[in-house]
């Protein structure tokens, strides 16, 4: 099968500077009329034996050179979405396009081997019976042996695995295996690179380093990338845009800053950062809660009416506590402090039993057991969601 987009893809990869420009600057700079490299439209996919679909009404558009992450809790169907793109799951309705070609719908299914998609599995899935070089070479069948060797050298160099060509997989560390998995996926010059929870099998310290490495590798290769993760840090730190999944479908998509600053729903807010949602009543621009009265803003175009029940988004880093005076109403108790060096995190117990977290600079500490009032730092506005 001829791949019409291949020519275009190769052009991108020989001019890394150009691609970096695209990927590095705002993805919004790409004209929205341009077809996406990966495009899912109203996709529904269900596993046999279960009534509810794993994903439904799933819409996603990944533009050329873009790095998009799908963030969702486990079981939300994000891996299913990835497998739909790769061609391992059939869709029951909707359309899947890769490189502008329809590859999946209720009546069309292009098998995975004809989609030219580079896939990095959660457990890497390297071939245990082959060396590193043979693993990377695997997708280059059809090329003469000499050319294959020429092709794998720069790829291995890019992931920093030169010199490991003749090692077997079990002789590599987890991080090295992952680099090889990425090299293997990139070697055949795929239309898009899919990463399934790429950091979940690594320990915490290695994770951050590898995250930066992958971001660099992906930029260098210019590959259009779709990453799936349940780790908000990963999603926010690596991608140009983050797609936050609710149940079965995407609830919000935008740049990391947008999604963090203006979460479209309480569910998105919970996924995107540590926070508490406390109930309150909306009253003329402020929300009255047990913890205090806060100025508000909304992130959706829903208008809040006076007296409406609302949920106020409380983020530890945006809150401040002050020792309560005699006349203060709505006070709460400092239950526990956790010293973290520069910052101290306070657990504040409201009288109803709800726990809030406040993160503040370590100096002028507040003792456990003190009665305090809760404010937003600099009287910043609190996001409210209608109940």
């Amino acid at each position, binding site marked *: 099968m001829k791949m019409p987009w291949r020519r275009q893809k190769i052009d991108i990869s020989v001019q890394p500077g150009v691609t970096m420009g695209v990927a590095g600057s705002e993805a919004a700079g790409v004209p929205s009329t341009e077809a996406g490299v990966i495009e899912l439209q109203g996709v529904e996919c269900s*596993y*046999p*034996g279960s009534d509810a679909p794993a994903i439904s009404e799933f819409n996603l558009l990944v533009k050329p050179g873009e790095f998009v992450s799908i963030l969702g809790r486990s079981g939300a169907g994000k891996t299913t979405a990835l497998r739909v793109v*790769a*061609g*391992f*799951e*059939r869709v029951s309705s909707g359309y899947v396009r890769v490189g502008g070609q*329809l590859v999946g719908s*209720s*009546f*069309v*299914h*292009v*098998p*995975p*081997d*004809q*989609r*030219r*998609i*580079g*896939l990095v*599995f*959660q*457990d890497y*899935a*390297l*071939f*245990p*019976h082959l060396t590193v070089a043979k693993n990377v070479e*695997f*997708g280059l*069948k059809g090329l003469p042996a000499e050319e294959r060797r020429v092709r794998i050298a720069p790829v291995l160099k890019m992931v920093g695995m030169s010199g490991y060509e003749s090692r077997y997989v079990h002789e590599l560390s987890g991080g090295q295996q992952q680099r090889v998995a990425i090299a*293997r*996926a990139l070697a*055949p010059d795929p239309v898009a690179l899919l990463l399934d929870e790429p950091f979940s099998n690594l320990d915490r310290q290695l994770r951050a380093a590898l995250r930066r490495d992958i971001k660099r590798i992906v930029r260098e290769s210019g590959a259009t990338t779709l990453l799936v993760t349940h780790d908000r840090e990963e999603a926010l730190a690596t991608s140009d845009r983050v797609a936050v999944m609710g149940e079965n479908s995407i609830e919000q998509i935008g740049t990391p800053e947008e999604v963090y600053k203006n979460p479209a729903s309480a569910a998105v807010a919970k996924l995107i950062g540590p926070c508490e949602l406390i109930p309150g009543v909306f009253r003329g621009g402020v929300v009255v809660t047990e913890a205090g009265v806060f100025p508000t803003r909304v992130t959706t175009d829903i208008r809040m009416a006076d007296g409406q029940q609302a949920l106020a988004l409380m983020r530890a880093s945006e809150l401040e506590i002050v020792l309560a005076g005699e006349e203060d109403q709505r006070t709460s108790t400092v239950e526990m402090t956790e010293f973290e060096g520069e910052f101290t995190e306070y657990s504040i117990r409201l009288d109803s039993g709800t726990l809030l977290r406040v993160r503040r600079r370590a100096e002028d500490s507040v003792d456990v057991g003190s009665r305090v009032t809760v404010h937003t730092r600099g009287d910043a506005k609190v996001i409210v969601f209608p109940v």
Partner: protein
Amino acid sequence: MTISDVISTGWKSTDGKRPPAFLLVSAAIVATAALIPVVYLVARSINAGSDWIDIVWRPSTAAVFGRTFLLIALVTIISVAVAVPIAWLTVKSNIPLRRVLSVAAVLPLVMPSFVMATTVIEMYSPKGVLQGWLSGLGVERLPDIYGLGGATLVLVLMTYPYVLLTVRGALRRMDPALEEAARAMGYGPVHTFRAVTLPMLRPAIAGGSLLVALYTLSDFGGVALLRYQTFTSTIMIQYQSSIDRTLAAVLSSILVAIAVLLLLGEGFTRGRGAYHRSTVGAVRVSRRIDIGRWRWAGAAIVGIPVLIGLLIPVAVLIHWLVRGLLNDQQLLPLLIPARNSLYISLLAAVTTVLAALPIAILAVRFQSRLSRFFERAIYIGFGLPGVVVALSLVFFGINVARPLYQSIWMLIFAFVVLFLPASVGALRSSLLQVNPRVEEAAQSLGRSQWRVIFSVTVPLVMPGALAGGAMVFLLTMKELPATLILSPIGYRTLSSSIWSAASEAFFAKTAAAALLLVLVAGVPTAYLTLRGHSDGADESDRVAESDRQSPAETAEVAQ
């Protein structure tokens, strides 16, 4: 988009994946082939019509029935009684030479029953070696070895390793916390064994017993030499002595019915309890129990069956060989039968593994109603005695596949049908260890499903294929009834030439051939046993999951 892509969305399998057509086709061919013997047997028996009822109700049939059941019951009970203590001693206790003994205890498997029988007669018959030694002590005459006693002895020695392997596997996998919990609740060691350990071993004991019972039902050489008439030996006599083979066919279908009863019986003993661990996490290796001054007694309990079942028979064979060479007696010609045996066993091993591959891949990777049906179909060989398969193939050869009849391919066909479950089992457990993501990775790198199987799946299941092939090789080397019935005229293998000399009581002549057979059969057995030991447990132990799903997985433990 090709038309086939469009059509293919109509396929429904339980996990939504569509198996490639070539897998389906080859699996269908294998399953059909495996069903041929049964279908033929049934057809033949139906043709017998009213004779059928007549034969079934004959008093002589009832007598054979009774004798067969008596033998099965005795052999099974004694094998369990021998094997369970050995299993416990080699896994849980601190007997001396534990590692050596635990390998040695499995080795009587390599002895073919007819070789075992000749050495047992030589040693323990009223005119045998033991009588010679004992007469000095005033023992007048040993009880007659022929009949039930001798047959039981031979079969127990050959079959207790089946129970040993399954029970040992279950003991190794059993969470020691269960026994510790019982001890903490105030149960003593003996009470703990009775209340916790033994019930947990029940499925393993049942699975092993099933193998013993099925083997006993199907054995021909051993019982025939010891002159104990069972269904299998009656069928062989009928087949060899009369022109009309209806009787043999009808008796064969009764034999199949007994085998099915045994299979069902095993399922019944499982009950409804769960036998797997209810928690996740690594199984701790339990501490071996110090049995103090009973250590040497324990070693003796493990060692005695090895002595009687392996060392003495081999010693007898060596004695015959040396005596024969010294006295310049005529020995059986070795070269041609050995070559034929090797050739047939290798051919059977390769063919069976190749036939097993599509069934195993389909069963593990593309579960659907169809793949389950294929798997069930090939399990039939597990319950069919060799004599039945061979007889059906004779009818099939004469009536349908004339060109195959009297060629070694008919013999290979029989071995494939008989030993498919063993190799499917080995491949299956190997395949289950291959991460399916690895195959998906290969596919996403542009290989079609067909190429993925050859470039990734097959290399990765090589250990399982080798283990399965080794099992088939061993079983083929030892097999007698099918070899006798289906070998082309004049085609002699080690087992058939040993048999023809032994059945005329020229035991000593068989020495060289029998030794060679035991040695060659020992190679795959050693491979299977040692291979398993390098990963800390017998291969066969490892695959004998205590929560096994089907008797065919018991079959793979058999060797």
